[in-house]
């Protein structure tokens, strides 16, 4: 672990096997591919208040507590007590580590006014001092915070630079993994050009304020001999220490699930092909104020908790108590899940901190709670914490992160009344798997809620609009009336139903009457036919009788003539005939 162990930087990192020293700082080891270069010195630079000291301290504390590596913190600005107090707010028990000989804090006090320079000198005193501290506990890690103070104290910059160069080489020879901090300078990473001496790894911390909201970011400027993330990564500094979120590093290669989970509303499940949403999918509920977004989200949570899944509720506009009270009014008891530890609320105002910080906080809370289902209510308020493109970028990373962990997410989004609901979420609609739209409909003096599915990727879904009602036993969906007058809901629908049934009755009666008329007419017709037939029969008979009479009289006439003729001629031809047909 000396300076000649340097690897060829052109070699791929996995082959070069540059030994890494895990920092133990959440997220930092991911973006650096395992930690800081072991046995080398890393420069951490940033403006005042950017978190350099805390990063250094956490590096040592984590080294001592997680990796069994003792550390030396040499500070030039704060004394040991101040430092211990400052980092106690991050949950570090520095004094305990000092007592157990895992940490040494050495405060180097330099008073420019007390010092007069009178010729050649070197900083051997500092080396001896640091060496003593390192040897006293067998330290593997060293932090110098911030050595640049020396530039203010010592006038002879030439000597100082030469000594710094010697110091960094000396640290390398000692085999300790070191962090030196430096104040950000104008146009340079550090005010006094420390980057000139530290060439292995440079981290830049930054705190930017946009619209009164500060966001901390970390960037790996340089990491010789190792692949690393090049983006700016947001980080958090709070009671849990330093948390870097490697969110920008998340790719699109995540596995997806084909399992379904229920929405908590059976009729809604039915609309979504009968199963509900995809596990690990993202769901957007958008609608105007009071359209029932939170209630639907609460159903979703309730169903998830019922299945024994761990749920996180990120509330950005209401307090947890308020949400639970409101949900009780529709018959949902969320408190029971809270008590069972299946549900956790995470309430914060969107404007409390920047988008990146929100993202980081969400990331950490989700990881820590190992949530399977998360709800964000509402995401539209993020626009107030940043610009629209920023909010979109943030949500995209959020969705990516959640999907990569197979966490089912539900977002609610408030759309303003005037806007067409489809437009305001155009930014994130492409990221969302299932999008339900809730609308308020004002009609005949009342307001009703409508629900329909705008999008449901990868599943069969209903194209129908349903009326959405909130009852004291939860959400229910009703069919709506679709007729020539458009969509009717609520009492208008009931009225229409009544009107319809009345109209139906009238129509039925009308038809009945007509049927009777037809019957009657048919009967009349049939009667007429019968009468005509009877008349005809009568006539026919008369006619036939007449015909018969006429025929018989004609015959007897003929017969009479023949008889008369025979008699005249005296023949006896056909006497039978004559007898038969002739007169007697």
């Amino acid at each position, binding site marked *: 672990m000396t300076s000649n162990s340097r690897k060829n930087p052109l070699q791929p990192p996995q082959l070069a096997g540059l030994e890494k020293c895990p920092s133990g700082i959440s997220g930092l080891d991911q973006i650096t591919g395992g930690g800081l270069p072991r046995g080398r010195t890393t420069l951490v630079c940033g403006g005042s208040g950017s978190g350099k000291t805390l990063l250094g301290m956490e590096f040592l504390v984590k080294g001592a507590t997680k990796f069994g590596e003792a550390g030396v913190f040499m500070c030039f600005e704060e004394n040991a007590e101040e430092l211990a107090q400052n980092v106690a707010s991050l949950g570090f028990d520095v004094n305990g580590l000092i007592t157990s000989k895992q940490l040494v804090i*050495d405060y*180097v*006090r*330099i*008073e420019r006014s*007390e*010092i*007069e*320079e*009178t*010729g*050649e*000198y*070197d*900083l*051997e*005193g*500092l080396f*001896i*001092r640091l*060496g*003593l*501290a390192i040897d006293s506990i067998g330290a593997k890690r060293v932090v110098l915070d911030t050595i640049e103070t*020396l530039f203010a104290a*010592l006038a002879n910059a030439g000597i100082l630079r030469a000594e710094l160069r010697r110091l960094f080489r000396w640290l390398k020879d000692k085999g300790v993994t070191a962090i030196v901090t430096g104040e950000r300078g104008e146009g340079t990473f550090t005010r006094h050009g420390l980057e000139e001496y530290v060439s292995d790894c440079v981290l830049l911390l930054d705190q930017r304020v946009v619209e009164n909201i500060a966001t901390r970011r970390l960037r790996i400027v340089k990491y010789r001999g190792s692949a690393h993330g090049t983006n700016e990564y947001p980080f958090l500094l709070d009671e849990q220490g330093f948390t870097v979120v490697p969110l920008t590093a998340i790719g699109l290669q995540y596995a997806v699930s084909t399992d379904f989970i229920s929405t908590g509303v059976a009729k809604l499940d039915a609309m979504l092909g009968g199963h509900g949403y995809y596990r690990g999918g993202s769901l957007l509920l958008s609608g105007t104020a009071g359209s029932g977004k939170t209630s639907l989200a609460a159903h979703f949570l309730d169903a998830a908790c019922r299945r024994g899944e761990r749920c996180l509720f990120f509330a950005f506009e209401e307090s947890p108590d308020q949400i639970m009270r409101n949900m009780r009014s529709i018959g949902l008891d969320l408190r029971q899940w809270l008590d069972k530890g299946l549900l956790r609320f995470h309430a914060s105002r969107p404007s409390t901190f920047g988008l990146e910080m929100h993202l980081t906080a969400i990331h950490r809370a989700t990881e820590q709670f190992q949530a399977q289902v998360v709800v964000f209510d509402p995401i539209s308020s993020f626009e107030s914490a940043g610009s629209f493109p920023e909010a979109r970028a943030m949500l995209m990373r959020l969705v990516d992160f959640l999907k990569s962990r197979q966490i089912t997410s539900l977002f609610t989004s408030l759309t303003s009344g005037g806007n067409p609901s489809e437009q305001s979420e155009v930014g994130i609609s492409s990221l969302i798997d299932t999008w339900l739209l809730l609308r308020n409909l004002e009609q005949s003096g009342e307001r009703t809620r409508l629900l329909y599915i705008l999008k449901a990727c990868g599943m069969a879904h209903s194209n129908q609009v349903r009326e959405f009602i909130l009852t004291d036993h939860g959400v229910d969906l009703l069919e709506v009336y679709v007729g020539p007058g458009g969509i009717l809901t609520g009492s208008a629908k009931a009225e229409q139903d009544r009107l319809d049934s009345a109209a139906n009755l009238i129509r039925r009666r009308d038809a009945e009457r007509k049927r009777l008329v037809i019957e009657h007419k048919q009967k009349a017709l049939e009667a007429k036919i019968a009468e005509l037939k009877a008349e005809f029969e009568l006539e026919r008979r008369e006619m036939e009788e007449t015909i018969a009479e006429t025929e018989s009289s004609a015959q007897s006439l003929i017969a009479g003539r023949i008889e008369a003729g025979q008699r005249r001629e005296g023949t006896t031809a056909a006497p039978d005939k004559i007898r038969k047909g002739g007169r007697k």
Partner: protein
Amino acid sequence: MTKTEKPIVPKGKAAAGGEFEWELRLYVAGQTSRSIAALNNLNQLCETHLKGRYRIEVVDLLVNPQLSREDQILAVPTLVRKLPEPIRKIIGDLSNTERVLVGLQLRPGK
């Protein structure tokens, strides 16, 4: 504080025992040419300006490394004026006599 001084015996040492108006302590790291030069310069200067009123202690940090921390010594050689108060620190090989005199407040500064 018990200190074991390395016996590079300063020449101009006054009679043993009793308090001196001037208590000076020179911190060095080993017997380098620079530390020897510093001690020589100091001896000469004291003989010239503070004869009989001073005592010089020499501390070798290689022998007593913990003193680097206790006495806040970074640079070597460092000359510390412990008495008269307030404490003054003068770093370097003391080759610039003018500045040493200013540092010891034997001469007003600029």
